[in-house]
């Protein structure tokens, strides 16, 4: 088996909305997109990084005493000052002594074996429910070698693999993993390239062309296209209809997901501002959009 290491920021069991059956979600760290509404900002950087929640911090200084790189110091108000640039993330001692996980590391290096050891704990649930492993992120395609090794080994162990992806990758990489994937979910955020660049930081062209290539090479792949509906960004009827039309042309199911702001606190923990401000999506507006799209 490959000795490649992958950077994973979370493994979540009993996931029931990310592919068929009961599944375990493996979140890859690192993403080429910078969506303004991203609810997992800790997934964006491919590096291990400190997260810090001052509300849970006792100001006990145990972590400071354990750090020999000068990353951590206590400010006057007994909260932490973190020099993220100095941290080598090689010695997780600082987070180990933190009483209440106020200081954490986002990201951990795993071997394929280590990931599957956790995934296989719920093997019986997959058998009974038609579930399995779902790779998600972040962007799993950003770690192609590890992803491929993981998917291959999972399939060898008869664990079904589903993937959640932005679809943003080279066509080679995108297609290379598909023989091992049983169910694919791709988020199409906007049909207009310029807007797409503005709100995600990248062009939508590779995404759309990858999806066409997928259909060409893997005509039977179960595919679900999804759009997170973001107020003021992509919630125009025209855009959603166009996306829906595109999904239909691929023979894919199409689903709208409602915007939420639950990621807000994570931005704070990373010491970054929340790009969406106070934007809200009303229940009624979402329901009406969903109805329009489904009546298409």
């Amino acid at each position, binding site marked *: 088996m490959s000795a490649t290491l992958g950077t994973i920021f979370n493994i*979540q*069991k*009993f*996931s*029931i*909305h*990310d592919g068929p*059956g*009961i599944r375990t*979600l493996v979140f890859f760290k690192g993403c080429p997109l910078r969506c303004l509404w991203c*609810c*997992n900002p800790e997934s964006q950087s491919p590096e291990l990084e400190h997260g810090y929640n001052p509300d849970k911090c*006792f100001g*006990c200084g*145990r972590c400071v005493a354990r750090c020999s790189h000068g990353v951590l110091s206590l400010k006057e108000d007994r909260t932490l000052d973190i020099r993220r640039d100095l941290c080598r993330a090689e010695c997780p001692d600082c987070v*180990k*002594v933190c*009483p*209440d*996980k106020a200081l954490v590391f986002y990201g951990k290096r795993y071997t394929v074996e280590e990931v599957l050891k956790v995934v296989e*704990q*719920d093997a*019986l*649930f997959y058998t*009974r*429910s038609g*579930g399995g492993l779902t790779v*998600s992120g972040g962007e799993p395609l950003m770690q192609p070698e590890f992803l491929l090794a993981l998917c291959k080994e999972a399939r060898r162990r008869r664990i079904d693999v589903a993937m959640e992806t932005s679809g943003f990758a080279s066509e080679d990489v995108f297609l290379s993993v598909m023989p091992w994937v049983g169910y694919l979910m791709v988020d199409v955020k906007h049909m207009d390239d310029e807007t797409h660049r503005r709100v995600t930081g990248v062009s939508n062209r590779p995404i759309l062309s990858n999806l066409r290539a997928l259909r060409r090479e893997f005509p039977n792949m179960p595919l679900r296209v999804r759009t*997170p509906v973001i107020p003021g960004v992509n919630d125009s009827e025209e855009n959603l209809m166009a996306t829906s039309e595109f999904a239909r042309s691929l023979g894919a199911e199409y689903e709208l*997901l*409602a*915007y*939420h702001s*639950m990621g807000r606190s994570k931005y704070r923990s990373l010491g970054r501002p929340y790009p969406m401000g106070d934007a809200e999506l009303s*229940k009624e507006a979402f329901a009406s959009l969903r109805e329009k799209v489904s009546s298409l």
Partner: protein
Amino acid sequence: MSCCEHLAYSGQEQTILDRIAGKRDPNELKHPRLYKLISVFDGKKPFIDVERARLFTESMKETEGEMLVLRWAKALKHMGENMTVYIDDDQLIVGRMGHQGSRYGILYPELDGDYQASALKELPADPASPFEVTAEDSKVVEELITPYWKDKTFHQDLNKRLPKDSHRLAYADEGGYQSRYICCETASNRSSLQWCLDYERLLKLGYKGIKEEALAALAALDPDDPLDQCEKRPYLEAMVLLSEGIVTWAHRYAAKARELAAAEKNEQRRKELLQIAENCDWVPENPPRTFYEALQSHWFVQAFARLEQKISSNPTNGRMDQLFWPYYEKDVREGRLDEDKAVELLQCMWVNMAQCLDLAITPYNKATHEGYSHWEAVTIGGQTRDGRDATNELTYVVLRSKRECPLHYPDLAARIHARSPERYLYEVAETIKQGCGFPKLLNDEEIIPLHLAKGAPLADIYDYAASGCAEIRMPRVDTYTSGHAQFSLGAAVELTLYNGRMKKFGDELLTLETGDVRTFDTWEKFWNAYVKQQMFIIRHAFLQQYYIIQTRAEHFATPISDSLHVLAMRECVDLHQHHQYKGGLNLGYFECLGYSTAIDSLAAIKKVVYEDGVLSMQEVLDALECDFVGKEDVQAILANAPKYGNDDEYADSIGLEIDRLAQEFSAKYAQRLGIRCDFRMVPFTSHVPFGRVVSATPNGRKAWTPLSDGSSASHGADINGPTAVLRSNFNTKNYNMSQRAARLLNVKFSPKCLEGESGTRKLVDFIRVFCDLRLWHVQFNVINRETLIQAQQHPELYKGLIVRIAGYSAYFTELSRDLQNDLIARTEHDKV
């Protein structure tokens, strides 16, 4: 990850919210009789009814010196002849033991009569499970009942017999009234363990047949054989008297129904009353001819069994979908019955059960059985005696009768096996999603092979019935009825930390000295000290069992259970005697509280003190000493150590070891007691009072708060989702040993998690894996945390809210604040 964010409600929550909004419950229109019957007692405090205690005492005064089983039968006959007979308006199934038109509890002075007069003074004001008692009835207890039972009760006798070391762990006072909550006998609370009568015998023979059997056996006795004459004769005479007593009781109901019919103006009701009269003339004397008669016979007998003795908590209903299937099938085929009528009759029976409450008198019993606990489980599903799937149409009728009924009576248990049909699991899952905690699930794939190892005959274990909170019975094989001891693993942890002492009890040496923990330089030393404490307590659980067994045989008899037990009838030995019946199994158990509290505390010490060195033992002790006040960081470090319930081998391996040690003790010593005494984890509500004597523990638990319940994880500790909860349970069981009994497991889901058809599907899949993993029991609360908090704040709006506690359901607003908080704190799995 899903982005949709909205709240979903269980069926029950929706009904309550609709009612608050002024809408009517749709079931009310479907089942008018049921709702009318309920409206009479709904929201009212139950009464204590002293008639049973008075008649029982009257008879027992007259029969002193006779054989116990005969005395009991005479007392029952006296009750059959003299209990007031009532028929509630609109009721179709008759047979009551207390006040008309209300909920009521009855008294058993033979258990705790020495205590009743003072208990009756306290009960009306009791915040949890209160009762009303009239001044007149109080006087009867004080003047007629208590004086007779003084120095004669089981409780007093057992209290005197317990050796000092055992007594100290059980009671905090000499008289044995205040519990110590370290290792406590539960036998004073009930004369029998939860019990399932062999109703098949009843339906086949009727009491006429049973009486004939006894008369024939009497005629065959050898007049020269002293045992035949001194033991078998009174036993058999008791069977004859009992048969006459119960038939007399039924006939008095027939007469009452005719009397009421004569005065009834409503033609429909007059017909109903005449039908009731006809039923009561026929059953339980004869084998029933219809579904209706079969239900009436069944209820008469279990009602009479409630008059006979206090079974913990109430006699079990048995496998109703199997027992009544031939009658149902025939009636439907011949056009006498349809599904709606069957549901109505079943619901009439449920109302009778809801009205007769199991009354807790002693402080221990009250604290461990809050909210009028009850386990009169109806069993559905499972397998037939020849190992085929047993589901039939009546299974679904019983499920429907419960789904559309606002009562939490009776308790419902669904047996699950590897070949349970999809429709069955779907309807079970849909019923669970109603959110009232029904049904609880029992797993054939664990229970059947395990009991084969314990010596059960194959056909009988295929035919087991749920009985009690999570237990099972084989009505033709089980022969052991004595209560057991409960002990606290939370206390074992505290006794380790303080060298055999507990904060609550000052400097008193309670167990044994195992050394100052600050001097232990390795985890092994700490662990060894803990094991010594745990095993010391278990030793006393077994000693208590010995005295319970001895004492019980001198205080109780149970002619009804005997009359419906093929082995007791063959050997003519009452089931409360300590006896090994040929072909019988004496299945007893001993029980721990705070399993997860101990695992988590030990895992935290091991990890934080001995492995990572994050805290010194002194720091841990200092933080415990001040209950973490000002030491919240230490509490957080301890609380974040590995925890049971997360499929984490670090914690689970400690649980496995605790289980192994307990089972090994039983394997070595239970046979010396002449029984199987297997390791069980079922809490009732005991984890609350047992927690009240345990100071802060190294899992971050605050002093005096509840211990963990059953085999569930500590509150809020299971953060890895419900699959991990099942897996941890699996990880901590020693499947190679048979000295284990029920493990109760609570899982709470948010309604959102199980929403819609796909949610039902996921629950079905979850249940399949529960079955695959060979876990014994699981039950679900499907409710929003917010609903519980609302109900705590506005009890008047939520008085119908039903929640699952420990193998039974209860009205949330009838529970103590402590238990309410405990339910709120149980982790809600809503990860999506």
